[in-house]
């Protein structure tokens, strides 16, 4: 095995072009896969010390998270304490302190797990992934990456994930069901981005789910149902039914469906309720 | 007797070495001229096998591949000698040890394991203990899968049920459980200056280990020495032999120090589990909730080997009534071989599974009779002087009533119940 410790993005994409090796950042999944033979690679290219890849940058309209930014860095960043709190909360439920100190947002995207905690909030933000190879840069929508099963080419490096900053009145929330509090792969998760108008009607709603399908995805039918309505108990209950209907069709025949169909109610309401609470300052449900 | 320490906080004698990381577990011990060993295990649950180690032995750095042919007396086991040190003709579970590679380092061991050829001739397997009890089921050992049958007969259960106002009849199942002690099995063996086969291992039973190693290697016990290192948790899971005989044999054959360390995965595959049980219960009570009769058939799946099955299932039988006085009792507690991972000792030793059944029976009876679940227990619990189903008279303190009262008070049980009903 060869091992390279990349110092710049340029160097890494050159190495990738030459060796088609495996990129390693946090290594929290990759090292396990390499050891148990699920993955084989003659070349490892480490990107965990490339400063440009491990920082969060705020621009006028957008936020750019470097691919090798760890979950701990996101959790501790002041940008994610207010209306983007949902991303912090999602990152905070990843693994354990040890895993969050090493695991990266780019890694969460690259390994494509349906249970990746950080993805649903990023989907609500209509994020895009920036990739680079010696042939140049390429941007793909995060949603398309999953939905259209777009693969990251062997010589491509994930540089960052970007999204437009939501307005102050738009609140990102997240809720997860794990089998225990720490070190739990999510059984299901929901993220929402919510904004109300002056009449308390839903002005903006984005909903994304984790582990309710083969990959994390947006829930457009539920979004459409809620748009323009007031979030009364009745409306919310109906939204849960819509979601249950949609996931039922998607997960039909899976042994986990009966359980998830019931469990999703609480998790959906927790995410949405958290958004409402943050907007209105009061507990709604 | 010196009772100075009673009622005082005493610092653990080994705590300082453990908080500083200086405490040595077997994998922390290194010796000059030391080699490494790794076990080849069965990948199928039930099969006849043919072993070809030729290719593996030719690998550079491989020192020896041990199989059943190298073991003077190829059997062991805490009660029944139903384990083979290395399987000779047949494997009975996934994970059965077949060979032990000794090589210069761990990597070569891994490499050599892949080069040992095992031809499996698979035979019908049995995983359900109920099915395994039937005459026409595949047999794991010998001509019956029933390892042990413990019986309690007290009074006349038929009469008891006839007089019962409410009867609860249910089947309960528990699953197997792994101890998951934090330090996977490891050990190191060498020949000491007095020529003794010495094994340093984290074990619960150094004296049994010595006996079993001596017997397998056909040595006198004086020629075998076990040194217990620090033990990274056990909970019953280190009561059976794991790598002790493999290491001792290798040290004796090669006359040099040898070490083996299991991965977490191998640890799970190698050692015993808590017995999963299928418990068929019938319990009857009169109109006031007084228990009149109980009949239980408890089937414990001991997997491919008996280990402590007799003791475990006996304990399940003895505790089958729970802490309740019942005049008419019939218990059949049976341990059965299957091709599942083998079951053995784990904290509670069979007393932990039966409460799943007898306590739910109490709740179900309470509900049928419209009696409070605490009241029905208070009516039936053992007190000083009570006689258990096995005829034991409880002469000493039996403060169960106080315990239940205290718990009910602390959890504000009355409040919870008002909401429940």
């Amino acid at each position, binding site marked *: 095995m060869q091992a390279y410790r990349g110092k710049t993005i340029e160097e890494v994409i050159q190495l990738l072009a030459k060796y088609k090796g495996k990129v390693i950042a946090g290594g929290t999944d990759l090292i*396990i896969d390499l050891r148990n033979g699920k993955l084989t690679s003659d070349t490892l290219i480490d990107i965990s010390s490339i400063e440009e890849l491990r920082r969060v940058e705020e621009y006028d309209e957008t936020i750019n998270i470097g691919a090798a930014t760890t979950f701990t860095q996101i959790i501790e960043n002041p940008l994610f304490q207010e209306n983007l709190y949902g991303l912090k909360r999602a990152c905070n439920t990843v693994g354990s302190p040890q895993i969050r100190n*090493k695991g990266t947002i780019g890694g969460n995207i690259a390994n494509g797990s349906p249970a990746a905690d950080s993805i649903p909030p990023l989907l609500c933000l209509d994020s895009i992934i920036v990739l680079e190879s010696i042939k140049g840069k390429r941007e793909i929508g995060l949603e398309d990456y999953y939905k259209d099963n777009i693969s990251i080419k062997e010589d491509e490096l994930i540089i960052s994930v970007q999204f437009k900053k939501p307005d102050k009145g738009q609140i990102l929330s997240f809720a997860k069901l794990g089998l225990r509090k720490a070190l739990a792969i999510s059984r299901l998760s929901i993220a929402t981005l919510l904004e109300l108008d002056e009449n308390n009607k839903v002005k903006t709603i984005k909903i994304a789910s984790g582990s309710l399908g083969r990959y994390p995805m947006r829930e457009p039918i539920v979004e459409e149902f809620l748009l323009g309505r007031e979030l009364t108990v009745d409306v919310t209950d109906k939204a849960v039914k819509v979601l249950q209907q949609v996931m039922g069709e998607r997960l039909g025949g899976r042994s986990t469906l009966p359980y998830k169909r019931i469990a999703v109610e609480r998790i959906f309401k927790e995410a949405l309720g958290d958004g409402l609470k943050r907007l209105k300052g009061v507990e709604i449900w | 007797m010196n009772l100075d320490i009673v009622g005082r906080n005493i610092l653990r004698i080994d*705590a300082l070495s453990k908080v500083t990381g200086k405490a040595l577990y077997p994998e922390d011990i290194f010796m000059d001229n030391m080699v490494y060993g790794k076990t080849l295990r069965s990948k199928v649950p039930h099969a006849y096998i043919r072993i070809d180690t030729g290719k593996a032995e030719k690998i550079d750095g491989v020192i020896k591949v041990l199989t059943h042919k190298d073991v003077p007396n190829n059997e062991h086991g805490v009660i029944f000698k139903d384990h083979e040190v290395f399987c000779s003709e047949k494997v009975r579970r996934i994970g059965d040890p077949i060979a032990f590679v000794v090589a210069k380092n761990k990597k070569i061991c891994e490499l050599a394991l892949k080069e040992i050829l095992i031809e499996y001739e698979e035979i019908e397997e049995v995983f359900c203990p109920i099915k395994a009890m039937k005459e026409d089921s595949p047999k794991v050992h010998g001509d019956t899968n029933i390892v042990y049958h413990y019986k309690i007969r007290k009074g006349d259960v038929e009469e008891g049920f006839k007089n019962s106002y409410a009867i609860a009849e249910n089947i309960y199942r528990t699953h197997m459980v792994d101890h998951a002690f934090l330090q996977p099995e490891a050990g190191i063996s060498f020949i000491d200056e007095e020529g003794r086969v010495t094994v340093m291992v984290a074990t619960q039973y150094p004296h049994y280990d010595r006996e079993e190693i001596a017997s397998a290697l056909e040595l006198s016990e004086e020629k075998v020495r076990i040194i217990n290192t620090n033990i990274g948790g056990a909970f019953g899971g280190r009561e059976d032999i794991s790598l002790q005989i493999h290491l001792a044999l290798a040290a004796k054959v090669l006359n040099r120090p040898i070490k083996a360390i299991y991965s977490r995965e191998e640890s799970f595959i190698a050692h015993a589990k808590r017995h999963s049980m299928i418990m068929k219960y019938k319990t009857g009570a009169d109109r006031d909730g007084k228990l009149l009769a109980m009949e239980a058939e408890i089937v414990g799946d001991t997997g491919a080997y008996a280990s402590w099955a007799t003791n475990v299932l006996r304990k399940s039988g003895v505790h089958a009534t729970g802490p309740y006085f019942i005049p008419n009792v019939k218990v059949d507690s049976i341990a059965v071989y299957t091709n599942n991972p083998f079951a053995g000792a784990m904290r509670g030793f069979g007393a932990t599974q039966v409460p799943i059944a007898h306590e739910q029976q109490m709740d179900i009876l309470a509900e049928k009779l419209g009696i409070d679940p605490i009241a029905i227990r208070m009516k039936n619990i053992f007190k000083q002087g009570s006689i258990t189903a096995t005829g034991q008279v409880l002469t000493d303190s039996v403060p169960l009533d106080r315990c239940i009262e205290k718990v009910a008070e602390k959890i504000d049980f009355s409040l919870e119940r008002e909401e429940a009903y």
Partner: protein
Amino acid sequence: MVEIKLKVNGKSYILEIEEDMRLLDLLREKLGLLGVKEGCSEGECGACTVIMDGKVVNSCLVMAFQAEGSSITTIEGLEKEGEIHPIQQAFIEVGAVQCGYCTPGMILSAKALLDKNPNPTEEEIREGISGNLCRCTGYNKIIQAVEKGKGV
């Protein structure tokens, strides 16, 4: 083989290592720091926890070559001038040690937590040690020990 430079328990090393070696193997086999324990090899148990540049990591999930330029603290690095660390002392006094296999990692997680947050709540202590499994104690004594070790 690659050459790496790193600092372990305050001491600088230049080491020749194999590419497929993990930080755990480097610490145990190259440097003989046997207080780093291997429990699961996949980041579930935390027995191999070390502090890397101020943050806890599972040393089984870091490749040794990735540790280039880093500063590592293992349990062996907590003793200062022959005195054990107050958290270690608290673990002894409270009775938070049983089999001892989780203890080094557990103490390092507690130390990293207290270094960052000298006065954590019980909830924060539980969160801080949530990546370290203990099969003996049921955690209560460990939490009491961290409580006792804080602010000393």
